[in-house]
Structure formats: structure tokens, C-alpha cells
């Protein structure tokens, strides 16, 4: 049943009024090649019972593996109250809060969210969220190109230590706007972006430098030096951060002499379940000077005529419904429900709870690293300080090792060979606060066994790049 409210009779009446013989006639200026008649990829409808059966089968196939996989989405503990409150009808069914009179609850929640993000990042302003971390970085890049009026180049310095999927998304979103992404190599020993690699670019025209912290390898970048280099060379500094790490690390607003100008990232670690990769949400914060170039919604706090506090959308002139094709963003404006969960999550944990979760994740990852590198032939690739992820190299093919671990109901990490073939048989591992000492020990035992079975060190056939 199509969800179109018109009856056939009404459709005929409207067509008669327009003077078109049929709906097809009405749209005949659209070439036939562009018109979809059948959606071949969409299967036929199933009943609720059939869907339930299908989804149960699929869920069983997934199993409930122990997760040592991070790489942009993290298996953190989410208090039960978070989604219990988030799924209350008042939050769950609320739609775009354009009508402030009817949306004070949603607006206040978004305002609280923005306040928390500003506190966490050390920036001046936060928007009400974006689609996800990768598109938030793309929006930050577009925003920097608009905001940096001294720069004429539309060039962006993008370290290779930025999440590969993010780099692909950014490329796809900005390439048709003549924005050039210049890749910066990473230090093969440290796994970080050595500020020295920027020297050849000194004095050139760049709109912005992207600074991931921690970077895709989990490694901490020299954010102060990178931020100051950007500012000394007329570029804006865009921080790409894991929000949970900010409970322990210096926030982007305090990097270098004057802080980053824009910061963005993936909000999933703040209360969103892994959920097969989404929905998550992206966050975007900036300094006051850039606020008019910020895409998405911003909620402001004001007073009505009676002096009562009220919340409302502010700076709307930049938005799609007013600025049309010249809006600061035309992707999507907000992931309201995810932000609701994140706000409740942060409110429940408080700054101390976030700090404990971050510290426990850091500690568990250190334990994991020690356990794994005790196995002959397993090495930590990058020695520099890291947050809660590490790259380790294996004495056996990474892909088949991970496959074997998966058969043992264990997600061992991410095979880096596709995106970073130069690293050899390397995997990215992660242990959040949810991983127990027993689970970490069990991972070590299983990995040792798998490597032994696959002939790793004993047969001497270490795969070479």
C-alpha cells in the first residue's frame, strides 16, 4: 500500500484541473531513462511474523562475539536508563523543532547537548549534530573553505592517519567543489604525522589542516605543534577527535597557542550502540568567529516578553529552509534521537563517569597490548603514546588469523592491509572498559594458538610485502 493520501478520484480531479491525461503525462518531461519503474533491489513485502523470523536468523548468524574491534565505532557500556528515557514518546516521536512554542523539551535537550559538547571540546559553539563522524569532517572542510577568507586555494592538508573511510567520504563530498585534499604521510616509526612533513608546504596557501586526535592508529598526534603550524601559515586547524578521549586529553579548544578553529568527530561512543554501523551522529563545534559558517541547526536560549526562559532555533538565515541553494549545508541537519541518547548518557555519567570510562579503556588496551605482544612474533608497530587502540603486527596473514578468531566468537580487530598495505600483516585492536581481564587473557591464548596453527613463527614463512 503506497503511503499517499490521495484517492484515485482525487488524483483524476487534480489531473483534470492541470490538464494532464495521466500521472505519467504530468512527468513526461523527465527522460524515461531516469525514471524508476521497478525497484529491483527491494524484495517483496513480508508479514511481521516472517520479518521477526528473518531478523532472528540474521542475529543468530552474527552471534555475540567478544569485541576487540574499534576503528571508529566502539563497544562501550551504555546504562540501561539511557535508551529507556530516550525512547519515551515525548523524545521518540518529536520531529523538527521549528515551532518553538510546541518543542521546548526537544529544544532544551539540544541546548544542553550543545553546552556539554562545548564544555568537552573547549570550543565556543556546537551545532545540534550532523549525520555521522565522516560527514561531519566533510562539513568541517567545507566550512573551513568558506570561513578562511584569506585563503584562495581551496586546498586542505589531510594526514594519512585520518580514518580511511572518513577520507573517502570527504573526497566524495568535496571533490565536485574543486577542493583539493593534499595527503600528509605518517612517520613509519611513530605512526603519527611528524610536523616536519609540513615544512615543504610552509608559506603556501591552504584553507585548513586536519588534525586527528587520537589518529586512526590510536596514536596521539603532536596537536600543539600542528595547530600552531596551521595558524602560522594562514590555515585553519580542524580537530577530528574521539569525544570520550576528551575526558582525558587536552580539548581542541586548548591546542597550541590559540586552540583549533573547528572540531568534529563521531558521537557514537557517547551512548549509541554499535548496531551494525548506525545510526550514529556527527558533532561539530567551532570558535565564535566561525559561527556563521557553521552548517546545521544551532539552538539558542532567550527570554520571552514575560522574562521566562525559552529555547529556539537561532541563526536560521544560514539554513536550508531560508537560504535554499546557498545554505551552509544541504546534507542533513541533525540526528535528533542519537543526540537525545548522547545527552542523557553524558548527563548520567557526568564528567567523572566519562573520565572513568576513558581511563578504563586506556588501561584495558594497555593490558591487551602487553598480552598480545607476549606472543612470539606479535609486535606493537608504533611506540608512541596511544589512547585505546593499538596497531600490532602478526607473524601470520592477518586476514586468516582474524577469520579463525571470528570462528572462536572473537572479533580480533581490523585488518589494515586494505587501506595501509605498507604496514604488512597489521591489525588494529581495541579494548574498551567493557572488556574483562579474562576476555583479554582468552584473546591472548586464542591468538597464540591460531598463530601456531597457521605456522607463523615456527615455519619461518613470514609473508613479506
Amino acid at each position, binding site marked *: 500500500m503506497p503511503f499517499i493520501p490521495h484517492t484515485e478520484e482525487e488524483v483524476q480531479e487534480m489531473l483534470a484541473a492541470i490538464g494532464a491525461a495521466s500521472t505519467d503525462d504530468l512527468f513526461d518531461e523527465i527522460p524515461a531513462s531516469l525514471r524508476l519503474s521497478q525497484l529491483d533491489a527491494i524484495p517483496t513485502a513480508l508479514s511481521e511474523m516472517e520479518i521477526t523470523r528473518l531478523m532472528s536468523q540474521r542475529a543468530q548468524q552474527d552471534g555475540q562475539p567478544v569485541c576487540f574491534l574499534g576503528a571508529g565505532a566502539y563497544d562501550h557500556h551504555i546504562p540501561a536508563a539511557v535508551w529507556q528515557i530516550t525512547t519515551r514518546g515525548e523524545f521518540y516521536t518529536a520531529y523538527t523543532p521549528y515551532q518553538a512554542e510546541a518543542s521546548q523539551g526537544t529544544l532544551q535537550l539540544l541546548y544542553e547537548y550543545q553546552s556539554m559538547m562545548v564544555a568537552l571540546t573547549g570550543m565556543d559553539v556546537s551545532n545540534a549534530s550532523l549525520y555521522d563522524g565522516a560527514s561531519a569532517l566533510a562539513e568541517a572542510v567545507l566550512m573551513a573553505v568558506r570561513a578562511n*577568507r584569506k585563503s584562495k586555494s581551496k586546498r586542505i592538508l589531510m594526514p594519512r592517519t585520518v580514518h580511511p573511510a572518513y577520507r573517502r567520504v570527504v573526497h566524495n563530498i568535496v571533490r565536485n567543489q574543486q577542493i583539493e585534499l593534499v595527503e600528509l604521510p605518517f612517520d613509519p616509526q611513530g605512526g603519527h604525522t611528524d610536523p616536519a612533513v609540513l615544512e615543504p608546504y610552509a608559506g603556501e596557501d591552504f584553507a585548513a589542516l586536519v588534525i586527528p586526535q587520537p589518529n586512526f592508529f590510536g596514536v596521539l598526534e603532536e596537536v600543539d605543534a600542528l595547530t600552531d603550524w596551521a595558524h602560522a601559515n594562514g590555515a585553519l586547524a580542524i580537530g577530528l577527535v574521539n569525544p570520550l578521549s576528551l575526558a582525558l586529553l587536552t580539548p581542541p579548544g586548548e591546542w597550541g597557542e590559540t586552540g583549533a578553529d573547528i572540531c568534529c568527530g563521531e558521537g557514537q561512543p557517547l551512548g549509541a550502540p554499535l548496531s551494525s554501523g548506525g545510526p550514529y551522529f556527527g558533532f561539530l563545534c567551532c570558535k565564535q568567529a566561525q559561527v*556563521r559558517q557553521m552548517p546545521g541547526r544551532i539552538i539558542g536560549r532567550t527570554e520571552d516578553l514575560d522574562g521566562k526562559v525559552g529555547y529556539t532555533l537561532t541563526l*536560521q*538565515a*544560514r539554513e536550508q529552509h*531560508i*537560504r535554499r541553494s*546557498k545554505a551552509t549545508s544541504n546534507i542533513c541537519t541533525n540526528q535528533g534521537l542519537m543526540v537525545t541518547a548522547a545527552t542523557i548518557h553524558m548527563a548520567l555519567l557526568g564528567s567523572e563517569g566519562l573520565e572513568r570510562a576513558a581511563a578504563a579503556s586506556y588501561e584495558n588496551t594497555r593490558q591487551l597490548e602487553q598480552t598480545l605482544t607476549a606472543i612470539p612474533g606479535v609486535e606493537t608497530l608504533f611506540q608512541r603514546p596511544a589512547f585505546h587502540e593499538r596497531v600490532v603486527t602478526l607473524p601470520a596473514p592477518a586476514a586468516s588469523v582474524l577469520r579463525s578468531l571470528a570462528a572462536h566468537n572473537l572479533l580480533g580487530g581490523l585488518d589494515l592491509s586494505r587501506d595501509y598495505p605498507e604496514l604488512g600483516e597489521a591489525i588494529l585492536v581495541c579494548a574498551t572498559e567493557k572488556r574483562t581481564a579474562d576476555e583479554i587473557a582468552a584473546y591472548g591464548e586464542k591468538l597464540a594458538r591460531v598463530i601456531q596453527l597457521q605456522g607463523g613463527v615456527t615455519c619461518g614463512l613470514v609473508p613479506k610485502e
Partner: protein
Amino acid sequence: MSNVPNDLKYAKSHEWVRDEEDGTVFVGITEHAQEMLGDLVFVELPELGATLEAGSECAVVESVKAASDVYSPVSGEVIAINEALADAPETVNQDAFGDGWLFQVKLSAPAELDELLDAEAYTEVMEAEAH
């Protein structure tokens, strides 16, 4: 009808031009334009030294409910911008033809001034829009 000074030239897109007769002009938006927009909250001006082409977008005036592009009525180089508008955009509402000027241009094609509207012709444009 709003005030339309006789000593200025106008563009159809509601900008005014004051000829300084030294090869430079001041540019702003008309009283009528600011009335249509309502209370201005932000003005984005061109960069000092920017090269403008007649008819091209060069500034944005933003009110509480709308944002509107400003088109340069003339070609040339921006030699001054009204810095005071950064903190007091409402000056455009209060004194569109005076203190609310937007930028000053050194003309690269002075003949363009002859193509602009005089007060009478601009008044006709306003009246036509009102119907």
C-alpha cells in the same frame, strides 16, 4: 514609499552608488531594501582589495528571518569596507544611505555608472514591485 535621494545612482537589485567623482564610489543597500529585510543582525562584507565585477555577488545582509545577497553595481577594487557594521549591523536599518554604507570601490570601468538607474527610474522599479 521610502526615501530615494536624487544624488545617488541605483541598481535594480536595490543597491545604491554614490559617485565621489575621484574615480571611487560608495555602495550600500537602499532604504527600501532594508525595510523589506527587517532588522539586520549580520552583514558579510567583501575582503579589502577584492576585485568585483558589476552584477556579481559580493556581500550578504542577514536579518532575523532571511539572508539576501548584495550584488556589486560596479566593477573595480574594494578600497574600504564599513568595519563598524560588524558590531552594529542595525546601522543599515537606521541610516541606509549614510552611515550604513557597505563598501567603497575604485572603479575599473567608470562608464558603468551611466548604465545605472537614476532616482526616478529606481522609484518606478520599487512601485512595479509593490504591485
